[in-house]
């Protein structure tokens, strides 16, 4: 099975200043799968994606993508590897001064010298796949949030990547758009023979398309497995997260200095921490 791993993380540590974000994360992502990484907001999920894409470097640990150790790659090799990756950003990140067509054409224009007619076919094919061929002439400002995300999806896969990252693909979308995006992720992943890594806190939608999932909490992987195994997990933290319970191992109350009764009855001076 080791040969099938497209992305491998071993004991990855990452900190921003004094704040530890990832504390010894290890995971293996097999080729062709849709793998979800779930966890609370601000829990380091996006950081983890950036580490796998090589836009951030870990303080310790190893990250291998397609058999290459990201930490030993030079700038040119890393950029060559990125041509085989795509990323769907949380806010679409479309270029605001380009039309929908030019946004999708951008990677092709930058990397290949294609005949205009070939380029047109390739771009329209990808736009057709996300159902937006008719919107090719629109500007990003004229699109709804869901349409923008679909254009960004077309752009992320226009180079036929082997690995696609999705950063919170469902956030801020209406239920119809969420359904469309989820279907597209599954369909495109299988059609391209790609591998998808999905970062999300939307449990239901993610579980409907993911083959395997990891739950990240406190900078560590606390549970992993297929959606069914995760649902049956006996980790209390995993159950709190998947069940959406307000209190549990992740406390409802932000820690306070003294207890509630003292805080209410005690003399309080302006500016003093309660």
């Amino acid at each position, binding site marked *: 099975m080791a040969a099938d791993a497209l992305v491998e993380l071993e004991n990855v540590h990452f900190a921003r200043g004094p704040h530890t974000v990832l504390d010894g994360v290890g995971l293996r992502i097999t080729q062709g799968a849709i793998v979800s990484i779930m966890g609370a907001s601000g829990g380091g999920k996006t950081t983890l994606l950036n580490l796998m894409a090589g836009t951030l470097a870990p303080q310790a640990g190893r990250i291998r993508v397609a058999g290459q150790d990201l930490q030993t790659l030079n700038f040119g090799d890393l950029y060559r590897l990125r*041509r085989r990756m795509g990323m769907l950003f949380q806010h679409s990140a479309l270029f605001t001064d380009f039309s929908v067509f030019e946004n999708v054409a951008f990677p092709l224009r930058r990397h290949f010298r294609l005949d205009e007619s070939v380029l047109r076919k390739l771009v329209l094919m990808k736009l057709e796949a996300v159902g937006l061929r008719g919107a090719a002439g629109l500007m990003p400002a004229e699109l709804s949030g869901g349409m923008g995300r679909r254009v960004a999806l077309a752009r992320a896969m226009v180079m036929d990547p082997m690995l696609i*990252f999705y950063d919170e693909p469902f956030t801020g979308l209406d239920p119809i758009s969420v359904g469309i995006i989820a279907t597209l992720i599954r369909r495109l992943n299988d059609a391209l023979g790609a591998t998808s890594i999905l970062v999300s806190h939307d449990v239901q939608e993610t579980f409907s398309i993911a083959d395997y999932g990891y739950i990240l909490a406190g900078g560590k992987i606390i549970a992993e497995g297929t959606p069914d195994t995760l649902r049956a997990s006996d980790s209390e933290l995993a159950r709190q997260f998947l069940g959406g319970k307000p209190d549990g191992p992740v406390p409802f109350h932000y820690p306070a200095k003294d207890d509630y009764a003292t805080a209410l009855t005690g003399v309080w001076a302006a500016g003093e921490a309660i």
Partner: protein
Amino acid sequence: MAFMEFIPNLGRRTLRTVPNLGTASRFLLLSLFAVANRHFSIQQLLKQVYGFGVRSLLLMMVAAFFTGMVLGFQGYYALVRFGATSALGTLVALSLLRELGPVLTALLFAGRAGSALTAEISSMKATEQLSAMEMMAVNPLAWVVAPRLWAGIFVVPILCVIFDLVGIFGGYLISVPVLGVDGGTFWAQMQSNVAFSGDILTGLFKALCFGLVVTWIAAWQGYAAQPTAEGVGNATTISVVTASLAVLGLDFILTAFLFT
């Protein structure tokens, strides 16, 4: 007590500034040399030259016209006491070519194009457009920053030439038709007392340096901005203030050490 706070604060500020300056310098060199990168495009450069130039042209011309007219009045006021109004043409031309042209062009450019550049790059960063570019294996320094940086270096000297010409014309309009200085003397004195390399080229050299510094500061402030709405606003303000002060400081250094 206040003094005891002052020393560690100074140290902390210095420790923060020095690495920032280093990163900014590295950013400048990488961007300048990104012309060799395959994602640097001449079309992008021309688009920026056009954008910067057109954005600032009218502003420059109006400012230059008024500056020249004021120079005519003030110069006349000083020269008439010595009966030397025939030197008014020389005074207007030398003031503009050596000093006011480059400096005012750069200050206006910082306010007009520089602030827009910072806002543009920082909002591209805030909306993840720069990260998206990196993910598509296109170096944002080559595609976004380098064309703008080189455009600034080209455009500011060109704007400076226009500023000088319009300013001299404004000075002429006040000196000759309004104040009654002889037109022939005005131009003849100017022609014989303005040196091409000593006055005109040094002024253009200043403009070139200012163009580089203003665009560098504007691009860097945009690139290093906090990726939030507040960060974009802050970066724009800091960019204009820093660039303006840098132009005035650099002007002193260039004038004092190179062109005396």
